[in-house]
């Protein structure tokens, strides 16, 4: 089982603040968090009804390109999916939703699926990555070499667990 293939980024974060601009939406909170290993800043919209996070909470965060536990099936799946026009990660969710196969998602509490849509170089060598999970935003800011696995306009999974 080779997890490395799928995992694009992973680290532990602790919540700095929740809704610092005031609570604007009923079911969604914007959390600010700081990474423990890579010195990164995270802003993340979380559905707080499903997965409430509070100030000081610590969680592990993983960005993965697919939820396959085994990379071989991922490769074959990719092949078949390319023909139908779906992206690599695109069709992957159906098996996970159906719960037919064991997947990476099973190990986590809160999983989102979305797209990396922009890289920004606002502050010198630090890079911000913007990912949107159907409107729930994630902004990860840090040194570029920690984020080099991420490619713009690709679909990713976000996995959280406490």
């Amino acid at each position: 089982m080779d997890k490395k293939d799928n995992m694009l980024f992973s680290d532990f974060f602790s919540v700095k603040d929740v809704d610092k601009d005031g609570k604007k939406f009923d079911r969604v909170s914007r959390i600010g968090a700081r990474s423990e290993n890579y010195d990164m800043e995270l802003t993340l919209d979380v559905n707080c009804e499903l997965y409430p996070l509070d100030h000081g909470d610590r969680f592990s965060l993983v960005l993965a390109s697919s939820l396959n536990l085994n990379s071989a099936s991922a490769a074959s799946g990719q092949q078949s999916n390319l023909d139908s026009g779906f992206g690599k990660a695109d069709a992957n969710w159906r098996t996970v939703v159906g719960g037919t196969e064991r997947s990476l998602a099973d190990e986590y509490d809160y999983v989102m699926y979305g797209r990396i849509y922009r890289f920004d170089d606002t502050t010198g060598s630090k890079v911000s990555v913007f990912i949107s999970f159907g409107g729930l935003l994630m902004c990860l800011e840090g040194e570029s070499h920690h984020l080099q696995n991420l490619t713009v306009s690709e679909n990713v999974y976000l996995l959280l667990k406490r």
Partner: protein
Amino acid sequence: MLTDTDKISFMKRLRTKGIDNLRTQSIIKSVVANCKKVTYCMHCKGTNGVVKKAGPLKIVHEKFRQKRTAVEHMEFLNKLDAAVVDSPELKNVVKKAQEELTPLRVFQLFQRIPDEDCELMGLDKNNGRPEHLLWTAVPVPPCCIRPSVAQEEKSNEDDLTVKLTEIIFINSLIESGIKKGASVGNIMEQWDFLSLAIAMYISSEVPGVPVQISGKPIRGFTQRLKGKQGRFRGNLSGKRVDFSGRTVISPDPNMGIDEVAIPQLVAKVLTFPEVVTAFNIEKLRKLVVNGPSVHPGANYVQKLMDNGLKRFLKFGNRRDIANELEIGDIVERHLDDGDIVLFNRQPSLHRLSIMSHRARVKPWRTFRFNECVCTPYNADFDGDEMNIHLPQTQEARAEATILMGVKNNLVTPRNGEPIIGATQDFITTAFLITQKDKFYTRAEVTQIISYCFDANVHIDLPGPCILRPMCLWSGKQIIGLLMKPNHKSPVSVGLETKTKSYSKPTPGSNRPPDLCPNDGYLVIINSEIMCGALDKSIVGDGKKKSIFFVVLHDYGTREAAEIMNRLAKLSARWSCNQGFSIGISDVTPGAILREKKDIIIESAYKKCNELILESSQGKLENLPGCDDDQTLESHLSGVLSRVRDDAGNICMQELGRHNAPYIMATCGSKGSTINVCQMVACVGQQIVSGSRIGDGFTDRSLPHFPKFSKIPAAKGFVQNSFFTGLSPPEFLFHAVSGRVGLVDTAVKTAETGYMQRRLMKALEDLSVNYDTSVRNSTNGVVQFVYGDDGLDPSELEGDGYPVEFESNWSHIEQTIPVNRQNPESVPPFLIRKMCVDISSIDKFKKNCTKSWLDSLYLFCDGLSNKLAKLRAAFGLPSYNELPEIMDLDGENVHYLETIDAQGDPASVKSVHNILQVTRLRLERFFETCLLKYTKSKIEPGTAVGALGAQSIGEPGTQMTLKTFHFAGVASMNVTLGVPRIKEIINASSNISTPIITAKLVSDNNVQSARIVKGRVESCLLGDIAECIEEVYRPSQCYLGIKIDLKTLEKLQLELTLDQIASAISRSKLKIEDRNVRIYYPDRLRVFVVKKDQELLHYNMQNYKRLLPKVVVNGYPQIVRSVISDSGNGTYNLVVEGYGLKDVMNTDGVIGTKTASNHVMEMQKVLGIEAARQTIINEIQYTMESHGMSIDPRHMMLLGDVMTYKGEVLGITRFGIAKMKDSVMMLASFEKTTDHLFDAAIYGKRDSVEGVSERIIMGTQMSIGTGMFKLLVDDNINPKHSITESNKIKAQKTDVDDYKENVNILVTAESDEFNADMTANLVEYDLDTLLKPSSSQKPGTFDKTNKKLRFKPRTLLFDIEENQTQLSVK
């Protein structure tokens, strides 16, 4: 009356070739002027006097008015002595005797005018001799013109008939009178009565004739032609038509935007003549059997056999008729689904008021259409009615769908913004569904997405945005699907913009816009919404950053319309389940809100009281150019108007997210912050024509308040909300401003309607020609290139420019993925080279202007700089310049992959993630840009004049009553709104606020600005004189003036006593130089001349009264001037009044940067080009200050039309009469009969080329699709006539020739004509050619215009049918 030499010179000038109407008129005018000066006739030595009217229908020749004709006068009077002898009572009046010009006398005079003099008077000696202008016989129109209406037993005759009988009756009276020898007086009376009756026969509004008191005035010929209901405007320019209908409209979101539901009842009346072919015969048979009363049926059948005899299908055996149907017959079938109908709502202010829809026949009785299409029609459903018309030929249908189709008119030509977009509920739905916390389960999301479609589209469900703990999809994903339902759909929307609810990041924090806490920054990539909620600015109309606009320009109209349809359907169904309503609880303010509002109002009241107190104590510093009251008023209204804004903002903060008014105001679907505030918190200050409510009683608005009260409540401030209810005074004030609003709108509509009509008449015939010039119907050039760049305002992607590079590049980035194997990433230096390489190929060079290409290079340069900077930031070599090891032209130019092989992979990756320019992307980018640029070029034939007139007129109707605006400083008001637009296009010489803006030489110094102000402003003697005293001394009497030198110094006026003295002597008081004496240092004496002992005193008093008003300094036409602070420490001088020339030449003013807003003055001082620019700028400025954007090209065209004759012509009846020559066009505009009489006198010809004329004549106009003609070369053996055998050959040649170079030859059989034709090319209209009976003799063709002209559509068909008359090679 002219000498022979004069005659010849005038004649010469009149006979100049190619002279236009305007110049001819002016020559004739000068002829008349010259003649007036002559006293004695050259031929008969008779005296020449003034001919003038004397009472109704009497003309008198005052021969002896001039003094030197006294001798002749005496002679004339002597002749009358005999009469006096006969009847002594004449003695007293005989002195006043003049020669009366009776019709008979005039007729005799006219007959004696020689032919050559006719020409000098502008008359036609052959057909329009002056005596022809007098009636020798009364024309009697046939009975159908004056029908008699038979009512029970007696018949009612037409006015004309009545008048005719009257004329005949008087005639017979006179006749019998002469025979029987009635008295002269009696006959004269009847004679006068007869001429009166004839005059009434022509026009019942003869000046000087008493109006008939009883009943309605009779309708003479003039009245029949005149006015809106008259022949010209009522029957010729606009006609009643068949195949049309009108009924109430109602909304239906299930209709597509290009559809309209037609009630079955209507569909059964409107028919389309469908020709029976082998393909539709079965269908048509069924329709015929159904007959007129069953819906998909038919009303009439025209048989080919019976020469087009119509058979009504209501009676007779329809089955038989159906069976007898054969190919070539015409069935007038009912309107059916898919037919093209024109849909229209009055007032038709712009071309989008008539659009073509596809019909869908539905039950019930209203026309129904999608709400999105309300905006162009300006329709609502409170009882509005609309019209439909059914085009009757296939050509008409084709033209209607392409040119007038709703889908092809999604943008307004006014500025290229989308005009059809989601409205009201659709916006609310889009807003609510894209909220960040809208999540749906799989069942819900599939249900909702199926709302958008008619179960006919494959949908690819994207992955859920939340997988664990449960699968949820967000609302944004649904909207994404709506744009791109499956992966096969090409639509890939890319858009990035701020929405209405975007909140600016606090200064200092570098929060990226995406992370706006309100979700107010929209990013759409590949049709997926990344962040941001949709609102009016994204799905509504009127914004270039809307989804529909982006799709329209990237993927075409069909996709844009489709997405709109989907949103409409989704909205209708989704909101039915969701529910959205408003109730009393929505407008009930909470405790906090009430408290905050009370605080605001209280503090405002306190502030107002303080201000009033300060003002009454005189402590309030006056604003520039204002007196005490104005200053106070301006402060107070500032404070009070802020109250409502503040209260509104608090409302938006305090109301809950689920409050319906709040939602509607934030997403822009209906209402604004102010509306919410008025309901919830505070109605605010009521304003009538720019100020607070005025006094209806003595010195107060209502007797409830003390006199001269200035407190907010007394002047119309309403502190209650609609929820709490208004107090009685408040209610009254609210009603006052409400009524003013209603009156204002009523007045405005009438005014703007007339303005629109005038604009349209002036600009209607302008169109773009194939040589890119804009010309009018007489081929006069108005512009060489439309709008200076030849671009179509409705096709522009950006604001005034054709291609939005930025968004196109990001669209390219999104849609063209990087090829992983061979990305070919381009380094910065190569980007520049590739740009030049790509754009040097022919299709760029030929199609693009240099300036546009330059802007494209500039963008690419920016792109490469950005990339270079980025690379530098990540520690990679920037390659902004060509590295030395490489040679641009050589082989060793590499893409980034090779160059960066050794670089830090993380950095390389990051740079690529941020910006990656590949060869493919760059090429595609250039291609798209070129495509969009060529698309945005204006098409030849476009009626740019009509578009311009509509684009300026239509927004006029929307302008609200905000008529004033501050020009930089308070108190310097500029007229705005409709009155200002009217001033500009009328080219009025008297405008209400003429303002000169002057740049100062030293513009950062208030002191020097004041000095200049002093030079400019007019200063009266009274202002600087300490006293003016009367001095009576035995030796002399004078007025002593003492000048206040201190004031002079304070005002910084550089005036010496000499200057003052000369100013006094220059004034209109007619005081001579020597009578003003100076006594230094500060005294002047004005001596009064004593002509008359008695008058001396009065003269003294008179001078004393007038002297203070003498302008001693500055320019008298200037009312006042104000120094305006432009904000950054520089000052301008704003001068109100006329006198641009003076101000420009004032020391301290930069003359070259000084301009007036007065068009006519600019023309006078700076010339016609300056006037043109002023027109353009002023209209633009006025429109902008009302928040309306109009493409500058429209204004340019208007400016050019108003100035292209060399003088500024207003868009008024006078100006238009100078612009156009066509009598028919002028007659259909205003003063119908005046123009017709004029035309009759001068024997004018109308070439029938303009739009109005062609409409009147019912022919095709020469703009738009009617512009191009077919040129026929008849050098190729014209004698060759057609036979049965070469008929086919003829057709074949047509087709063959068409491929090469259209060379079709058509000639008439007449030999005479053939001879003409052989000369060269002859221009001739086929319609007349085919009707030899109706056309003039073939021999009289205009030989100068040797081109044969055809209506292309009828060509082939007509040749076959009329082969006997035509010969075809």
